[in-house]
């Protein structure tokens, strides 16, 4: 068979249908005329000939019909007719179509967007070669196996040289973030440095795209402390290469001024490269690892490490080798006999904090998707029951079962496709919304895009659901003899039991799922409020903060000590500024510089257990305590007396004072840190994290501590006026003092603290959106079932009213039915919430997963919604006019 001529004939038949019909008409007329002429020629009278030829021809329309059949375009033409019929049909019932399309749009769009986010952040591999083999090494002790501590250089060195199950172990200095001022003069800006071991680039398997990496001897470089004799080398980011060298390939070998010192550029990293732990980095500098052989450094923990395991090596194998190495080291360093290390897959390490939130979201998405399917099923079933008579009538009039089935298929598909299109638009919008909502708080979210496979998945699910439940009336019509269905109509019987019962169960499951989602959202909301109300020990409102670094090349320790005090005084004197100071790490932004210490006076002297402790150490300048609202409880704050000539002074937090000096005043007592220190004051407790984790604090005056290392200090400025005005005034002041200094990352203190809270807020917003969706869907479901019930029982209500039932009784019946369904749903939902309470606990802050206020709120909310959904049909039931209902 010639396919081309077949297609050509069929296409012509479809697209030139009218011309085709006209030609057929003409051809057949010609035939009849020829026949007539022929017969007339044989001597029959003309009229008789015409009559005979028409008889011989048969019915013209039948002939036409069989020719049309032969065209092979019948199914297509009928499908077109079905679509036209469907559109007219849906147009008569726009509410139904709108609800189905809206439900599909929300279901497909919302779930796809969130699914994409989860997949992107949680499931996609890290952007490194064979990322599954990358692990992070943490220090731990035998007493705290789950610890996530830094490594000492000695232990790092041992692991790097001895761990044979790993291809390489690299060190990264993430102990504190290190910035550098790049360039000089007006063009100076602050960049992010990352100190790494020389083999870092081999472990991540990303080599500089231009030039080379560090050499092993670079590790004896200047490192973190200033070591002016060593050669200074750096690998720069693609961005710095563009900004400072205009992308010149000859940049390798040239020098770059950082913190006033000249570094030789040895390599340029590829565009877009981010460190797995530190994120975006502007310049890599070799970390000083001369101390790996220094036994006195065995207890100085400040290195992070990542390793690449050899192919085929499991984490457990590597871990057991790591344990053996650590055990051997205890012979060498008896003081560290508790010291061990642990391995975590790097991916878990990075997404760990957000994975719980994302899994929670995945659960919510699943629930909503099920809700959508249930709702679609419900709507389709209600509609199909409404149309039982229509189908019975059509089938009685001769429409074949296949014909009815196809009609319904076309209807369902039309709705599903419209819903899918709307869903796609919603998904596009929701993805941009998620990116905006989660920017900066969820790692790697900024590159989020809609995943076509996921879109396909939810499209398939929703469309499949619509089609499946859309076809039920045809199946039912096929099962019911048309006569029965038609008779049922005339009797106007009370609602047909089984179908209604099934739909009620659907609504019950909807209410249950909506309840679970609402409880989840409510708990997060309560948790978020508890977090907001949390007393961190500071007053972070109206405090402007930025980091200020004094380049070591131009400022020696004396100059630095003097500068920070003078600057704080000048800022405090600005109009609208109440107090100003600086600190080495902002409060409630995490642990840092946890040093061990022992008391050298007071009741616990000599107590090897209670007299020793670790605490958070901070270096402060200016009027830090007043600027962030930490109250002085005893003694005095730092002032000009605490300088180089005085003994080392410290201020400690209240909880540390109680712990170290029980029953006596801490003021005047002495401590041994790296050197003996005298306590001159006690201040209020401050949280270490923004979730309120407490720890003891030791504050050192920068005046006395400037020589310890070059501290970049976070300036904190308490002001009363406008932020922009204050910031501009501070910038002018600094430019006046030293135009080369950089105001790095200015922001408000509450903003700087709130990062974890922002992530929680992100989760919360999404969950609230889902809960609202679930609520709307279950309200729609309830409303659909009840109003259908009312419609079916119009006649029954008419009879009851004619027999004297009060309108209140009728509406009460409907209302009661709705509330019973809703209550059963809430009951199941409560069981679901109890089952999920274990999962929720980890996400909550100071809220029980079965918090009564939250549970009560969800019940109340559902009761109101169910009440409204039931009241509308109940009201309609009372509007039934007995006379018209009975006719």
């Amino acid at each position: 068979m010639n396919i081309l001529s077949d297609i050509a004939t069929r296409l012509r038949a479809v697209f030139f249908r009218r011309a085709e019909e006209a030609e057929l008409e003409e051809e057949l007329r010609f035939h009849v005329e020829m026949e007539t002429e022929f017969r007339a020629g044989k001597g029959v009278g003309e009229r008789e000939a015409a009559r005979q030829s028409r008889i011989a021809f048969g019915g013209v329309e039948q002939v036409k019909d069989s020719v049309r059949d032969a065209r092979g375009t019948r199914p297509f033409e009928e499908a077109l007719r079905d679509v036209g019929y469907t559109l007219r049909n849906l147009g008569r019932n726009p509410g139904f179509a709108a609800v189905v399309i809206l439900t599909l749009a929300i279901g497909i769009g919302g779930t796809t967007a969130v699914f994409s986010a989860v997949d992107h952040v949680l499931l996609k591999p890290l952007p490194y070669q064979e990322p599954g083999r990358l692990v992070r090494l943490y220090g731990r002790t035998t007493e705290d196996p789950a610890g996530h501590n830094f490594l000492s250089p000695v232990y790092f060195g041992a692991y790097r040289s001895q761990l044979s199950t790993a291809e390489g172990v690299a060190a990264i200095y993430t102990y504190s973030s290190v910035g550098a001022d790049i360039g000089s003069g007006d063009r100076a800006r602050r960049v992010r440095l990352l100190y790494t071991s020389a083999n870092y680039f081999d472990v991540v398997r990303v080599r500089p795209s231009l030039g080379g990496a560090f050499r092993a001897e670079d590790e004896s470089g200047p490192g973190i402390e200033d070591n002016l004799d060593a050669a200074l080398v750096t690998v720069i980011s693609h961005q710095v290469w563009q900004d400072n060298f205009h992308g010149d390939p000859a940049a390798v070998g040239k020098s770059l001024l950082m913190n006033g010192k000249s570094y030789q550029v040895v390599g340029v990293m590829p565009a877009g490269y981010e460190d797995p732990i530190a994120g975006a980095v502007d310049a890599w500098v070799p970390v000083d690892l001369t101390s790996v052989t220094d036994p006195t450094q065995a207890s100085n923990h400040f290195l992070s490490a990542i390793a690449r395991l050899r192919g085929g090596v499991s984490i457990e194998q590597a871990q057991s080798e790591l344990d053996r190495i650590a055990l051997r080291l205890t012979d060498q360093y008896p003081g560290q006999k508790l010291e061990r290390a642990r391995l975590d897959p790097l991916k878990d390490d990075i997404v760990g904090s957000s994975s719980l939130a994302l899994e929670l979201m995945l659960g919510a998405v699943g629930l909503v998707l099920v809700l959508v399917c249930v709702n679609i099923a419900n709507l389709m079933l209600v509609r199909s029951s409404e149309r039982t008579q229509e189908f019975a009538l059509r089938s009685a009039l001769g429409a074949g079962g296949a014909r009815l089935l196809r009609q319904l298929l076309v209807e369902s598909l039309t709705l599903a496709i419209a819903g899918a299109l709307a869903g796609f638009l919603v998904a596009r919008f929701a993805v941009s919304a998620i990116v905006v909502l989660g920017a900066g708080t969820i790692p790697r979210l900024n590159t989020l895009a809609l995943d076509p496979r996921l879109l396909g998945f939810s499209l398939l699910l929703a469309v499949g659901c619509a089609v499946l439940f859309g076809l039920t009336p045809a199946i039912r019509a096929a099962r019911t003899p048309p006569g029965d269905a038609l008779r049922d109509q005339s009797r106007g019987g009370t609602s047909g039991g089984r179908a209604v019962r099934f739909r009620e169960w659907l609504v019950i499951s909807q209410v249950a799922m909506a309840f679970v989602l609402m409880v989840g959202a409510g708990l997060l909301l309560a948790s978020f409020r508890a977090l907001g109300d949390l007393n961190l020990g500071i007053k972070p409102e109206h405090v402007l903060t930025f980091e200020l670094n004094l380049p070591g090349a131009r400022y020696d320790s004396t100059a630095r000590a003097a500068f920070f005090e003078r600057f704080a005084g000048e800022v405090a004197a600005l109009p609208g500024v109440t107090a100003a100071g600086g600190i080495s790490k902002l409060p409630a932004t995490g642990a840092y510089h946890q040093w061990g210490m022992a008391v050298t006076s007071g009741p616990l002297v000599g107590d090897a257990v209670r007299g020793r402790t670790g605490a958070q150490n901070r270096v402060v300048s200016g009027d830090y305590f007043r600027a962030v609202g930490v109250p002085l409880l005893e003694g005095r704050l730092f002032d000009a007396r605490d300088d180089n000539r005085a003994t080392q002074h410290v201020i400690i937090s209240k909880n540390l004072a109680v712990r170290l000096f029980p029953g006596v005043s801490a003021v005047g007592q002495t401590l041994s840190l790296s050197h003996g220190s005298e306590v001159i004051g006690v201040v209020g407790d401050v949280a270490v994290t923004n979730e309120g984790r407490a720890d003891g604090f030791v504050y050192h005056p920068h005046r006395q501590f400037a020589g310890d290392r070059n501290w970049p200090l976070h300036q904190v400025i308490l002001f009363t006026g406008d932020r922009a005005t204050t910031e501009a005034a501070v910038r002018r002041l600094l430019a006046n003092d030293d135009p080369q200094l950089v105001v790095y990352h200015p922001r408000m203190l509450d903003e700087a603290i709130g990062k974890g809270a922002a992530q929680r807020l992100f989760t919360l917003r999404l969950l609230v959106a889902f809960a609202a969706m679930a609520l709307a869907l279950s309200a729609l479901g309830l409303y659909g079932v009840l109003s259908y019930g009312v419609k079916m029982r119009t006649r029954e209500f008419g009879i009851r009213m004619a027999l004297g039932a009060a309108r209140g009784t009728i509406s009460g019946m409907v209302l009661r039915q709705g509330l019973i369904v809703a209550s059963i749903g809430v009951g199941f939902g409560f069981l679901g919430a109890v089952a999920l309470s274990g999962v929720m606990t980890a996400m909550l802050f100071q809220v029980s997963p079965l918090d009564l206020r939250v549970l009560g709120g969800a019940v109340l909310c559902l009761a109101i919604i169910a009440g409204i959904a039931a009241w509308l049909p109940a009201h309609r039931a009372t509007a039934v006019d007995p006379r018209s209902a009975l006719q």
Partner: protein
Amino acid sequence: MATENGELLQGTLEMLVLRTLAHEPMHGWGIAHRIEERSSNVFLVTQGSLYPALLRMKRRGWVKTEWRITENNRRARYYALTASGRKQLSVEHGGWVRTVAAINSIMDAHWAGAGA
């Protein structure tokens, strides 16, 4: 073959139409008339089977159509055989000859022992 009242079965009709058109292009009535005439009015070609058959043959690419003016100045759709139509004709003709020979050999054979 044909039904009792002389109406041709589909496959047979198509073969006869192909054979008729092998002589010259014709319009529908001409085809029907020629077949009836040649079969001495044994076969009856109804329009209800002729025109669908012509359309099917056109879809298969055996015939092509063209509107032409007839001898007595009327517009009519003429059907003409294509190359693949000619090939089809020879295939069907061969098949037909074999079928007839086979049937004849059964029908005309002397059946020993049968009947009598």
